[in-house]
């Protein structure tokens, strides 16, 4: 199994996007039987598999700022933290060490600037946002952003996108067959007219 090495090179959004297949690249290595194990009972369990309770609170707080809850559900209601938690013991396992280190680093930085302060998760949203704006170019945040997107929009069986809330947000319909018209602009399409030859 490949070594994930340092977070910076292996886990950065830019590197992943350059691959042309998003995070694909990074996650490809380990389509193990663990995937199957990880997806079973994705919604059934209330226990964290990978995170400590405190890690879970921090991750949940961060992802809840990446896709915030407003008049509609956000990453918190979509179960993104649970997707990541389950993933890190299964299909994301190769990232586990780097992820935990990145999270510890995030906490350490936060506490070094806020020595007597509350934990990040219990800050009011405005102050969470303020802090995240200072760290949103770190590889850890960027990779967490990517995992949030994946957690919000992957099939619910992986633990996130609970009840299809992610799909609901973006307006995707999980259905196996559609019929035209598909959208507004093809509704009154008059039909294709063959143009005159140009040469």
């Amino acid at each position: 199994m490949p070594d994930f090495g340092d977070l910076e090179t292996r886990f950065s959004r830019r590197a992943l996007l350059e691959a042309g297949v998003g995070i694909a690249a990074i996650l490809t290595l380990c389509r193990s039987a663990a995937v199957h194990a990880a997806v079973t009972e994705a919604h059934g369990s209330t226990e964290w598999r990978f995170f400590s309770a405190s890690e879970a609170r921090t991750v949940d707080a961060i992802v809840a700022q990446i896709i915030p809850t407003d008049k509609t559900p956000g990453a918190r209601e979509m179960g993104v933290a649970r997707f990541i938690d389950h993933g890190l013991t299964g299909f994301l396992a190769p990232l586990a060490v780097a992820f935990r280190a990145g999270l510890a680093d995030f906490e350490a930085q936060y506490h070094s600037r806020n020595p007597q302060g509350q934990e990040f998760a219990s800050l009011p949203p405005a102050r969470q946002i303020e802090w995240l704006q200072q760290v949103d170019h770190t590889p850890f945040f960027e990779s967490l952003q990517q995992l949030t997107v994946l957690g919000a929009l992957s099939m619910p069986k992986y633990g996130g996108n609970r009840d299809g809330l992610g799909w609901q947000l973006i307006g995707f319909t999980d259905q196996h067959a559609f019929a035209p018209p598909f959208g507004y602009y093809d509704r009154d399409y008059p039909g294709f007219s063959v143009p005159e030859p140009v040469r």
Partner: protein
Amino acid sequence: MTGRHYEDSSPVDFVVVGSGAAGGVIARELAIGGFSTVVLEQGPRLTPANFEHDELKYWFLSGITNNPARSPQTFRADPSTTAVPTGMRPPLVYARTVGGSSTHFTANYWRFHEIDFVERSRLGSIAGTGFEDWPITYAELEPYYTKVDWDIGVSGLAGASPFDPPRSRPYPMPPLPVKSSGVLLERGARKLGLHPFPAPMAINSQPYRGRPGCVHCGFCHGFACEVQAKAATLFNMIPEAEATGNCEIRPNSYVVRIDTNARGRATGVAYLDTQGREHFQKARAVVVSANGAETPRLLLASASSQFPDGLANSSGLVGKYLMFNYSSRVSAAFEHELNEFKSVQVTRILHDFYDSDPKRGFYGGGGLDARIGPQPAFWAQRLSSEGPSWGAAFKERLREFPRSMQVACHGTSLPVAANSVSLDPTLKDAWGRPALRVTYKDHPDDLANARFLQDRGVEIMEAAGAQRVIRAAIRAQSFSVHLLGTCRMGNDPRTSVVDRYHRTHDIRNLFVCDGSSLVTSGRGQPTMTIQALAFRAADHIGRFARAGDI
């Protein structure tokens, strides 16, 4: 499955390495011709029941594609440097399953134009490249393009594009129903005096040859079709080959070597089963259709004392001239819903900028199409690189999904000898075989052309009334699913690997036909042409076999 079984030890007429777009066609044609044929496929055989709309699995966990955990690759842009392992980022991606990449392709099926085959004669040479005419013309390939239309099954409208090359028959099926992205591309392009037309697609617009019409589920690109409306060889060529009683498809068979005898003839191929045990399939002739990455890798890995540089490599060109097709991209958002996640990727394209024009100051041309772009998760990931990536503003952007579309601008890649597939000197795959080493750097003209086509895409989207138009950054390519040019065709054994009939110049009973055969890149969408070449190659190979000339 349903085909017959052949023993390794008794030679069959043909062993075909690879069951994809080309291998599936060749196996079917040879089997219909009465030849005993064994197809060795490194991946498993899947059925529609195995396929799902699972983005995480298909796009992010190598669900059906080559998995870098077991099949690692190395990459470098500069051939004077040491290629580095790409870890989770394989530069060359293909579907590793019976049916090959035809299983997960988008199914854009436009023909190459007449100019593609004679461009060097028309435009002259291009310094630092292996820009060449093909040894065959469009006219020679036309009957086989028509065979692809009718035997594989293509939906389209003949005569709809004023730029289309001549065709001897119309399409067997009408075009698929237009989507909003297609209407908008058409609207914008016509305002600009351009000539958009219904996209030819290898997807059934109605029931055809035992397969149903498309149900518009939207999961073509990167996914396998659950209803078999998309024309993977898994659903047409493979079962038809088996039905002859002359063909065995042997999945999970990873070919690692082609052996030759003292007379310099191929005797068969060595392959590994799922347990890693080596077998040897004897054959009168070997056809390699393993794709533009694995085909040269196999020839190079088959080096022996007799052929120290690899098989069929007297020219030194096996693995060289790798071409990708540069594809730039424009994203656009409109006022109303398009719901691009429904139905096939592409319903309208245009070829107004297909030909290279010396006045532009660079070589290149292309085709533009209107499409979904990827499905939700991948789409949202790309979105993060185009603006705010978190918070309320990001959430607003996510809500734009149904109102979004893309223009994909498919362009040329020049053949540059340094761009190549070779054997990594140190890295091994999970079976202990030398890993694929990829060397690739876009020719400056490829990038200039990508920008030119992207500008045209922007103009079209603006003319169509887009609320927002975003150019995707044009960066050096280090990734592709179009694997072209690495065993090029030609008449001169010094400057090509296979002749005009796909016979290797060096070994009479060794044939190569797949994306590696292409001399120039075309403008994207190579599978249609790969299959036309495969039908033509099979015709000639069968003729040689009947004449005892293999």
